[in-house]
């Protein structure tokens, strides 16, 4: 029983972190219909920023995470405003190709700048755990989980309660109509991408604190984000949280009761099942699955 509880706790915490990694990817996809293949490299870039601040200046990663968010916000805004916006009206293959190219550039750039060595952000507390009976709750992962949940709710508040957020959602729903209402679509898109990149950067710093990373890990995070975004569904900010928690739990439980190498297949099996029974994702809106870009 304690083995099951332990796996569940661990899976939930892991799921929260996965959700934070994926939420920006889901946002960009939902609003702009761009599948951002460079998302994983933003995560890793955020991890490197947190790591550099920690190793050079001793800054705590949970503060460094904010710096990473600011830097990636700027990078994301510039990329979308002056690069991706140029091809946003093209077929989805063009944006796929462009973000794939960006991914290659960023990953190889990090290889040159930071080498391919594995890194980890060291703190005195993240590896410790609280004992609840026979179950351990790791401190670093708990903090990361709490931040993931807070960020998700903050994002929901942003898109539902603020003018900026509403303009982002409006542009995502119908760009033509939004522009007629006086929304600057280019700016709204750039903001969306910037927010997504900033969240990826925060997630990256936390990944670096609880685990290890190097540039080659970027592709894995993009893939995970894709699975989680589809699982949760587009058009709902809770989608990534639901998808992330589900993947975290499924992997943790699967790891306990199935041979260990099945874990990767399991995530995709769940994805296939969800696509069969709920094609728009667990909490996604059907509109986003069916829409046509005009």
């Amino acid at each position: 029983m304690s083995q099951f509880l332990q796996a569940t706790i661990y899976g939930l915490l892991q799921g929260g972190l996965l959700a934070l990694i994926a939420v920006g990817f889901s946002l960009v996809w939902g609003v702009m219909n761009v599948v951002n293949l460079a998302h994983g490299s933003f995560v890793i870039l955020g991890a490197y920023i947190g790591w550099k601040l920690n190793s050079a200046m001793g800054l705590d990663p949970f503060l460094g995470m904010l710096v990473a968010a600011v830097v990636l916000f700027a990078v994301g805004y510039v990329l979308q405003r002056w690069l991706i916006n140029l091809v946003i009206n093209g077929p989805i293959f063009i944006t796929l190709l462009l973000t794939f190219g960006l991914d290659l550039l960023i990953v190889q750039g990090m290889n040159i700048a930071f080498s391919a060595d594995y890194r980890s952000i060291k703190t005195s507390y993240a590896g410790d755990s609280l004992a609840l009976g026979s179950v351990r709750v790791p401190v670093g992962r708990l903090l990361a989980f709490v931040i993931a949940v807070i960020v998700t709710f903050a994002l929901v508040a942003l898109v539902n309660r603020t003018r900026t957020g509403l303009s982002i959602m409006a542009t995502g729903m119908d760009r033509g109509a939004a522009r007629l209402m006086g929304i600057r679509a280019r700016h709204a898109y750039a903001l969306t991408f910037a927010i997504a990149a900033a969240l990826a950067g925060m997630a990256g710093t936390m990944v670096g604190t609880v685990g290890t990373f190097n540039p080659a890990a970027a592709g894995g995070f993009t893939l995970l984000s894709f699975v989680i975004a589809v699982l949760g569904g587009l058009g709902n900010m809770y989608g990534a949280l639901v998808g992330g928690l589900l993947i975290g739990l499924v992997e943790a439980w699967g790891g306990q009761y199935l041979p260990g190498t099945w874990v990767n297949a399991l995530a995709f099996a769940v994805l296939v099942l969800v696509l069969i029974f709920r094609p728009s994702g667990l909490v996604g809106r059907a509109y986003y699955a069916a829409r046509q870009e005009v």
Partner: protein
Amino acid sequence: MKPQPKSVSVVAVIAASALLAAGCGSKGEKTSTEGAGKSGTLAIGASMSLTGKLAREGELTKEGYQLCQDKVNAKGGADIGGKKVKLDIQFQDDTSKPDTAAQLVDQFNDKGVKLILSSYGSANTEAQAAVIERNGQVMADSAGADNKIFEKGYKRTFAVLSPATEYAASIVKAIKELAQPQPKTVAILSADDGFSKTVAEGGAAAAKEAGYTVLPTQLFPNGTSDVSSALTKVKGQKPDVIIGSVHLVEGVAIVKQAKELGVVPSGGFGETVAPPTPDFAKTLGKDAENVLGSSQWTDSTKGSDKYFGSAKDYAKDINAKYGHAPDYHDAEASAACLALVMAAEKAGSTDADKVRDALAGLDTESFFGHIKFNDKGQNVYKPMSVIQVQGGKAVTVWPTDSAEAKMIWPGTKK
């Protein structure tokens, strides 16, 4: 959105030049496309994992080959049939993919390059070995340790490193010989790639032979940084020793997550190739203390040769040229290159068949230890070193005749 022709063309120029640069890079440092012997150089082909997931190890392997070329050429070249011949190693990037590594071997063959230095890792080397055999080339293998490569009857691939079955087994042997109190139960956790599984089997066999209770091996996906499932599974059985058949990233994950999950073996951790890498201690800090690992080579390895001198000399050279402490990946690459050069010198020829025969009969000391091959092409005559992280550094603790420090046991008692 309005079209912006100016910025589009700027982007296009940048993209085009990036492509151009990439294209040039992949052609490698091509100085001589001639085969052996022409213009006084000996062409050797090396497909390298310079980008992709093995980029780190690939870069170290390249350093090892490069140092070997520098060392041999500094003496005027290899002495082949009374003539001094300079080495010309041609590097090409295989992007860490076995298919590409095998294709590059074919390309070298088309250019008349018959002597090959292997890429990094068992998967790449296994793919290359098949092509080598078909083309009648000959390959010195620096990093493909999986016993599977040598079970296929190939006659043209020679590995200077100890076989995969020794990696975990040597840790078990060191514990059997040195640990007080002796552990009772051993749990083996392994990545699920072919090499790691072979390592795990070798370790389990050695642990059974030593009389320990061996728990069923727990697998996790190769390259994962989450091994919590495997740890949760063994936690209840309270193993005295946890041995990970791992690469660096999974090895780090085992120690990190064991702490998170409160899994504390009464004896300690053994992690095969992770602890000898300086990154292991750097990443884990004090949690890395006393973790055991196994290494193909350390700078206290015994033996010397005319090009590199002793292991200590080798360490100095790597440090001077690359600014870091030598990694065993450096050393095994240099050793593979050394074996190829020595075989060519012994054969007095650069002909692939003659070099092959000379390699098969090679029996020499070197900075890497004893280099000699069994009839399968494996170097089973060299023991592996067992190291332990002490004070943030990996020090050799076994075999005892080349030990730098006493093994600290139990390793988990702080």
